[in-house]
């Protein structure tokens, strides 16, 4: 028992555990909108695109959250511009822009990166990289997300279910889409250290899919996905410490195990 509690005596682990659990819940929560709007590729792509911003801002020496955030917005705008010029579809535009941004990040880190840039930690997650500032950031973004979803719950639901009718009904669809993208981008930014950019998409998708397998009610799905994400982060962090593995992959595998359980439960109960 004491061995299980050993890591809790370390400040870095406490920080990592809070971020993993809260970020898991945050990704699960926002992931419901991502999954129901069939935007999984955006979540995946945006996290990769942000890696380019991380590398560039690290090299220039500006705040990583500001640099990577601005880079993410630029990537999203570029995707929108390319998509508007047919015949390139949005999935292809996402593929081109985000992988190019990811590749640029790798080149920057390999070519000009200094020893203080731990690319592997950003790619796959590293509990040692989590500071008190990261804890504050993830708590702040989670609070912002909860307030936004609470204040615009019905509008966001309408836009997610049927954007065209929502627009006809007078909702500011473009504004609500932008709000969702900002929340998604912020969730990716604050989760980057613990999960790694290559695995964030899983944290966005798996909890929402698990919840959808277990419920047919949207508010229940939101709460359940948040809970699944939090459990995924908490269990994954503990297991990764004891097995001495990178936190990101273990958290994702914990989620995958929950998915298998929910899928099996769904098959059994019809």
């Amino acid at each position: 028992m004491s061995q299980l509690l050993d890591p809790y005596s370390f400040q870095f682990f406490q920080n990592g555990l809070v971020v993993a659990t809260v970020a898991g819940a945050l990704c699960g929560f926002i992931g419901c909108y991502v999954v129901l709007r069939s935007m999984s590729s955006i979540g995946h792509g945006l996290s990769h695109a942000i890696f380019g911003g991380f590398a560039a801002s690290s090299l220039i020496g500006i705040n990583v959250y500001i640099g990577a955030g601005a880079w993410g917005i630029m990537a999203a705008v570029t995707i929108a511009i390319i998509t508007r010029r047919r015949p390139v579809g949005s999935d292809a535009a996402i593929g081109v822009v985000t992988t190019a941004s990811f590749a640029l990040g790798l080149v920057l880190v390999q070519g000009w990166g200094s020893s203080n840039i731990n690319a592997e930690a950003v790619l796959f997650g590293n509990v040692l990289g989590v500071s008190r500032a990261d804890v504050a950031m993830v708590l702040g973004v989670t609070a912002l997300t909860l307030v936004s979803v609470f204040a615009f719950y019905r509008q966001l639901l309408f836009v997610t279910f049927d954007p065209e009718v929502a627009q006809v009904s007078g909702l500011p669809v473009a504004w609500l889409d932008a709000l969702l993208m900002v929340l998604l981008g912020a969730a990716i930014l604050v989760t980057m250290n613990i999960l790694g950019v290559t695995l964030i998409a899983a944290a966005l998708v798996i909890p929402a899919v698990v919840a959808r397998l277990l419920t047919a009610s949207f508010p229940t799905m939101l709460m359940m996905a948040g809970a699944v994400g939090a459990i995924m982060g908490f269990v994954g962090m503990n297991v990764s410490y004891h097995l001495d593995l990178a936190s990101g992959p273990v958290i994702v595998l914990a989620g995958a195990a929950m998915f298998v359980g929910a899928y099996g439960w769904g098959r059994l109960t019809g």
Partner: protein
Amino acid sequence: MTDTGWQPDLLLEAKQLCCSYGPDEVLTEVNLGIAVGDFVGIVGPSGSGKSTLLRALSGSLAPSSGQVSRRRGLSLGFVPQVDHVNWDFPVTVAQCILMASPRSGRPWTTRVERHRLAEVTERLGIAELTNRHIRALSGGQQQRMFIARALMANAKLLLLDEPTSGLDVRTRHDVLHLLQELKQDGISVVLTTHDLNGIAAHLPTLVCLNRRVVAWGPTQDVLTPQVLEETYCSPMEVLQHAGFPVVVDRPIAR
């Protein structure tokens, strides 16, 4: 959208409306007005631009040229084609209808909203179904749910895209009667349909569309062999039965 020189009973007006998807122009110089109390059917062959016209009238599709003007403060209700709806979306009938309630964005419902929901669902005969998942509804019930959503937002003009598509004869008649009742309650209705005999012939006003307005007016005046041939590019006959026009294909001479 403009409001200059607006006739008092006019709800919506399209002037020289053109719509394109890329280089392909789907609608050309459409002029159309929808007034209070109108019950209009838009008919035409596949690809004639019926749904495009409806989307342009609703404001969800920007015209490539021309304009759609709407009466200031007009509340529109749009009922999409059921084929375009994600029926696996995790919402109940009540949750779907309440999306359109304009009172607040908060998750919970107010007493006023619950009262209005009960009133609307009772009116449309789906009060018993509010806790069901949307996939558990029949085709006619799905249409009623979306009409209820529009009424929840106090729509004064309903735009329905193929509301009777895929419905059996009985359900089709039920939906048509429901829309006629709504019209009597002061709600104007515009719908698209492929069904010339089952639906279009029973509506007071028709628009025959084939990328442009071929004819627009009272059904008896519009449903003529000449207009139909021009609209569908195929010879047709119009017979009379029990006071209603019946459209039949004319065999093509070889």
